[in-house]
């Protein structure tokens, strides 16, 4: 599986990973190489095999609808890179 430059660029966009052209090219080579090694999976007959998404066979784990105190506002904001008026501040979301 050889990835194209455009594919790698698209994946980087989906993942919101800013990347230089150099990085993209390195990703392209390395990911192509890794994906090639995954081709062994196509040898496995999984026609009637259900997927396993989890390591435990639990189900119905729910909790009661009860309220606990939230964290103090100062602790919620303590790690904020930028804040204003009690909120996290970000660059303009609307274009």
């Amino acid at each position, binding site marked *: 599986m050889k990835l194209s430059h455009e594919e790698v660029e698209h994946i980087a966009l989906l993942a*919101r990973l*800013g*990347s230089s052209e150099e990085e993209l090219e390195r990703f392209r080579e390395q*990911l192509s*190489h890794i994906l090639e090694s995954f081709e062994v999976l196509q040898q496995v007959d999984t026609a009637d095999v259900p*997927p396993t998404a989890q*390591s435990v066979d639990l189900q119905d784990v729910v909790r009661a609808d009860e309220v606990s105190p939230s964290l103090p506002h100062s602790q919620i904001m303590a790690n*904020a890179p930028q804040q204003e008026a009690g909120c996290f501040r970000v660059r303009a979301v609307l274009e």
Partner: protein
Amino acid sequence: MGEPNLYQLTIHEAHQLLASRQLSSFELTEAVLARIPQVEPQLHAFVTTTHDLARNQAREADERIAGGDMSPLTGIPVVIKDNMCTKGIATTCSSRMLEGFVPPYDAAVIEKLNALGAVLVGKSNMDEFAMGSSTENSAFFITNNPWDISRVPGGSSGGSAVAVAAGETIYALGSDTGGSIRQPAGFCSVVGLKPTYGRVSRYGLVAFASSLDQIGPLTKDVTDCALVMNVISGHDPRDATSVSHPVPDYTRSLIPDLDGIRIGVPQEYFVAGMQPEVEAVMRSAIGKLVELGASVEWGVSLPSTPYALAVYYIIAPSEASANLARYDGVKYGFSAQDAEGMWDAMEKTRQHGFGPEVKRRIMLGTYALSAGYYDAYYLKAQRVRTLIRREFDQAFEQFDALVTPTSPTVPFGIGEKVDDPLQMYLSDVCTLPINIAGIPGLSLPAGFVDGLPVGMQILGRPFSEELLLRIGFAYEQATPWHERRPPL
């Protein structure tokens, strides 16, 4: 052999001395804190040391002990891998992205340790976000193997394994997603256990691959491993995948014989790429298990094993690509400031906050889940995962445990594999299938090749930790490997 230095004590030895008032937690803690600067310049196991906290906790522990309120971990120094949240103490995952991040809450395991009066001496170095097999992927510095500082300690819990091996702590906690406790335990000649998935709460463990991650102990011997498991195991309502299976007293299973134990040796774990000397160590270790009364059958087959690497490197990065999406520079952590607009800020934050291996895995996982590729990669991997689990289930109908090497080689040289991700991934080939199946795996010292450690891995059915510890204990009692200390 003369009196061991205090920092070399095991938990159970230190506990005896504390209980009989021959030693105070403060003295023990000071011994460990004094050891750290002696060896740390060569090893770099710590991201953060917490001297002041440790001394305070040691004093409190001494008061508790004086008041008769004591458990086996009370007053004993511990090191925590830097991906478990510690309230008020930086938790970095060895990433620029979380440099300076101070969690406002404790992980479930930290709450449990604190409740018993444990003494935290520091947070250990790791591969960034637990992605790696050598601790070379730390964004801060490389950690060196105490048995040969030109070699890697394994990873991703390399700092924890090194701290235990070098006497910079009495024990440590690590996390294991594809071998991250067992492989460094093997490379550093300490005991490491990845519990059954669901045995230990993941609440507060910074997620790498949610369906594979599990916290476990790194200790100097099997008895210590059992003592730590007694504390960290158990159901947690905050972790929906945590299992409410009763927690036994794991020390009660520690009996020094293996009569009637049926052990299988899967052939797929002894194949291409394996170092012949490692195989020789394993043969002799398995011979010892027979001497101890176990029946051993060679040539057991788990035919899907060769696919485990691909399955793992699809599932883990897929889950990671979502788990690491929260690092966007808005709420906490690194935030790129030289940006125009929100998208640019987010992309630059992630470009400069994450290291190359983390980015590679995010890219890989994003690809495996993306439109048009989901079925061929993610879904296919989940189906093969079912086959891998089934094969283990079938093997455990015949055998109580399986024994394999922890790694196909002894510790490799620093820098040897960093430029070839696929070669690096192969170093986890013996440990990955265990996480895929969710079963427990114990690694313990099995010998040395030219002074470099070799680990033996013991596998069992879900919640068979007692049996794994029994086998490990019997082997340990019959061999000298756990008593060897690195030449520092």
